[in-house]
């Protein structure tokens, strides 16, 4: 297979970027998309040019490091697939593909196809701890977990924080990500003690980072390589209503992750 790639090249966070076109020859349909980029980078290095920077780690679709837009689709055209697990057989010989990084003010481009996703880390940090025992494995039936709760928590925990939801959302909203993280803990008995505080603080952190709000386009759900459902955003809304509308004997503490931007709204 021979392909033409139109790739976003940007030297650093503060330099303007542009699209550069590269032909790639002799691509095997069995290569993953990232392996195809490795081939291109080998050629660029031999020619003495700067290789294309992209983030990757496990290449098994479970770490959440990789991700960019291929022809306007996050992680490319295959549903429920990260770009590392996307194979070149999903494309045709002679295809011209545009590769672009996630675009959101909360995800500034660092270089080429790499964006800074530490905003996600700060949302997680602001959620704080759960008071679960971390010593030896507890007795399995000490805390009874309803089957539905455990299934829901597992579905939510599948989120790998790749950022495709933000990238695909017309509003650059991080609600699918945050709702998955909240649902993961809030449906389990172990997540109940800190539930309301975790909810409001993670939602506030999400707003503080400058992500947009949800207008229910459901683009995130279609983009998610882990098939996190839109339903979780509805759940997150309920968690917030509950946390704020329920009378509390003590005010909820506000927790802000270190390094979080101050909210200028």
């Amino acid at each position, binding site marked *: 297979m021979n392909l033409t790639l139109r790739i976003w090249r940007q030297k650093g*966070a503060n330099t303007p970027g542009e699209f550069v076109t590269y032909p790639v020859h002799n691509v095997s349909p069995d290569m993953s998309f990232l392996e195809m980029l490795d081939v291109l980078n080998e050629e660029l290095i031999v020619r003495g040019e700067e290789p294309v920077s992209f983030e990757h780690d496990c290449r098994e679709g479970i770490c959440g490091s990789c991700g960019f*837009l291929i*022809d*306007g*689709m996050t992680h490319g055209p295959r549903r429920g697939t990260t770009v590392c697990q996307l194979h070149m057989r999903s494309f045709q010989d002679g295809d011209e593909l*545009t590769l*672009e990084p996630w*675009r*959101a003010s*909360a995800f*500034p481009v*660092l270089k080429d196809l790499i964006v800074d*996703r*530490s905003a*996600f*880390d700060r949302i997680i940090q602001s959620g704080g701890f759960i008071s679960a025992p971390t010593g030896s494995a507890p007795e399995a039936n000490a805390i009874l977990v309803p089957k539905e709760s455990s299934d829901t928590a597992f579905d939510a925990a599948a989120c790998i*924080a790749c950022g495709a939801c933000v990238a695909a959302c*017309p*509003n*650059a*909203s991080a609600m699918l990500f945050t709702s998955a993280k909240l649902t993961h803990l809030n449906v389990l008995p172990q997540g109940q003690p800190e539930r309301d505080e975790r909810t*409001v603080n993670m*939602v*506030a952190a999400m*707003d503080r980072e*400058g*992500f*947009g*709000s*949800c*207008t*229910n*386009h*459901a*683009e995130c*759900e*279609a*983009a998610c390589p882990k098939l996190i*459902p*839109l*339903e979780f955003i*509805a*759940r997150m*809304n*309920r968690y*917030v*209503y509950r946390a*704020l509308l329920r009378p509390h004997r003590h*005010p*909820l503490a*506000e*927790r*802000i992750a*270190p*390094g*979080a*931007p*101050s909210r*200028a*709204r």
Partner: protein
Amino acid sequence: MTQQFISDRAVGLKAPAPAGKSRGVWPGNPVVALWRTTIGKKAVMAVTGVILVGFVIAHMAGNLKIFLGEKAFNEYALFLRTVGEPLVPYSVLLWIARVVLLASALLHIWAAVELTRINWAARPRSYAVKRSLATTAAALTMRYSGVLLAVFIVYHLLHLTLGAVGFSSGAFSHESVYHNVVTGLSGWFVSIFYILAMGGLCLHLDHGIWSMLQTLDLNTNRISRRLRLLSRVVAFLVFLGFIAVPIAVLAGWLGPKE
């Protein structure tokens, strides 16, 4: 995701906050606390949306009474002012409804403006190539159909509620509502504008009803398709019910001398 990149400082988008320490506590007033979050503002949009959708359906159903004839329609209009008597004085319930609806519409618009500003700021640079996989044309044009509806509501209130525009002096009378509708909608331009605005309403409701159900957590993956269908059906029925009146006037089915 690595810690050594403190790029939001490098890019100069945001000033760094004093690190580490908790800033304080959440406001005890739930309304204040909710309004501080984007989810709270969405909740405002959804709750006011429920009120406005309820009104729109009732208004559409009431409009259809015009097909029962001049007497029945005028009696219905009078009923809206006398309802609740003698427990509540003349037109008090009508005024309560008007205040609630106006407040809902203003809150709906206020929340929409705030959220739109946040959303536009969240993606300052758009994609060179972007494919939509799930969204609808109605969802993507919510802001435009919303603006159209706001303009229409102002015009409609001045036109058929107050009689301040579109009527020659003395042609508008609060007692003869049937006559007002038939003369008010007999011009082509006015009728076409009404029909176009209702097309905007249809689009707004197609996404709006489903969206409000999702925001209020009435959606699960199992019933998502049915909720979207329900939203579409209600939007279309409201559209048909509303445009029936200007079409009937234009077609001459509702004569002035019935």
